[in-house]
């Protein structure tokens, strides 16, 4: 599967995650977000940026608690919880936000 934005083709796997993480850019993220029905606000981008930074170092998405804490630090303590993350990404911060951030799909009992 694939999609195209501004003349660039992005390959995806059967679940719609980017096949090649290095191809990720804001265009791709915006397309993926729209496809998921997510309207990207500044807070949404904070999550995406943190996921990408963490992935850069550890080659995997962070545990949800690490993510909520980081978001709490950036956006205010009242937003550092799972509920807020689900408000941003109703499809789940681990799966939907990872998809928009271009990360591979987390596997296992998650």
């Amino acid at each position: 599967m694939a999609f195209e934005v501004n003349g660039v083709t992005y390959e995806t796997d059967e679940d719609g995650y980017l096949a090649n993480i290095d191809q990720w850019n804001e265009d791709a993220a915006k397309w993926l977000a729209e496809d998921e029905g997510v309207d990207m606000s500044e807070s949404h981008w904070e999550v995406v940026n943190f996921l990408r930074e963490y992935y850069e170092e550890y080659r995997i998405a962070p545990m949800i608690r690490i993510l909520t804490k980081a978001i709490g630090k950036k956006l205010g303590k009242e937003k550092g919880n799972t509920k807020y993350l689900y408000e941003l990404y109703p499809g789940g911060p681990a799966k939907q936000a990872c998809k928009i951030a271009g990360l591979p799909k987390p596997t296992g009992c998650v």
Partner: protein
Amino acid sequence: MVDKIETPELTGEIKIPKIEPGATSHYRPNQASEKHNNNLGFPGTRVENWQEKSIEKMDDLLSKYKSLLVYLDSCVRCGSCADKCHYFLGTKDPNNMPVARQELMRKVYRKNFTVGGSLFPVLSGAEDLTEDVMTEWYSYFHQCSQCRRCSVYCPYGIDTAEISMAAREIMDTAGIGQKYCNEILGKVMDVGNNLGLTKPALANTLEFLEEDVEEETGVPVKFPLDQEGADVLLIAPSADFFSTPHIEGFMGYAKVFHEAGISWTVSSYASEFANFGMFIGNYETMQKVATRIKDAARELKVKRVIVGECGHAWRVAYSFWNTLIGPFDFLDKKYKNPTHICEFTLELLDRDAIKVDLTANDNRVVTFHDSCNVSRGSRMGDSSGGQFEIPRKLIKKVCGNFVEMDSETIRELTFCCGGGGGLLTDELIELRVQGALPRAEALHEVMKERGVNTMAMICAICKAQFTKVLPSYGIDMEVVASLHQLVSDAIVLKGKVGV
């Protein structure tokens, strides 16, 4: 996405639906890629002579597992199982009646392995493994969570789980693998866990938890990794390092070890308790996954192995480890190996080795969801029914308000969460939502009538599945809790600031 799914309505009782033939014939999990199949030693893609290979494999399994032969021969179609499957109740598709699911294999068995079936196929309901039959197999053997509820009601004890495991093994042998299970098993072989959590990521996660718990409690609870010579090797499902409410349970284990003063460690090599080798019915894969745990225990020179909250893995550990990777004679014989974390914590509480403050959970009214593989595929502790009593006793020790759900939905009659058996994958989300219907009914009733606000459980799949699907039924995901999360909230840490 969840909001597009047709969610069955809660009616206040678990009803037998009017059948809708073929309602879910289009539900199919994604197929494994060449790489994922090859990782496990299966052909990468469907082999040219797939029918011949499949029948050969069926022959092999029938000679290896007499149980399978008995199950295929002994059904009298009494119908006792027909309305016992959560997927049938939730999807209305008659192929999800266990007898019909079994029939998908039985008809091929009759054609190829019985005299009557080969001579008079029409009279005896025998059929070749055609393309159409294989399509049905792939669809409906991936709509069985191998929970074995039907087998409790079967007068002959026919185990549909074993038939569905055999079917998946046959399909894998023919190069028709399921992506979710096979990809994950490859990750366990490569990295050590289902998630693909590398050692640096695991170390970072554990360090984070140390800081987090200390910040919250003022007590330096340790989360050790690869610590040689620790007393205990703790094997947890890797979801315990990643998701909510799994992590909260994992923090509970750590606090218990801390308070009991028992040294413990996690292994980066064997950082997974789950064993999806069972779901695909492949003995060799199951053995390889389990062997990592034995090797880690030896390497780290621990005295005992304690395992975390994971349902099917407890079946593998309790019922199969001894044959797969035993004996554990290199461990300290004073201890039961493996020990379930619930058994371990309850024993400490019984002899007052750790203290709890029940009032910490006063805000909760708790019910317990029995996980299928713990209930019907294992035992716990020293007496019959321990797998039911130990978790309940533990809950009552840490929380004052406990309520049971309908008696036909608990203990050995428990309903699967709807995501077990290797079906916890996004493309099967409709099946997962519909399969959770019976449990959602029973839970909703005690929430409404008895004020239940927490459903505790001891399985990583159940936790992930319910968190995802209960909101479709209007039930908040925060109702879902790890049993050791309740322990974590109630345990009194010596030196805890402010208590």
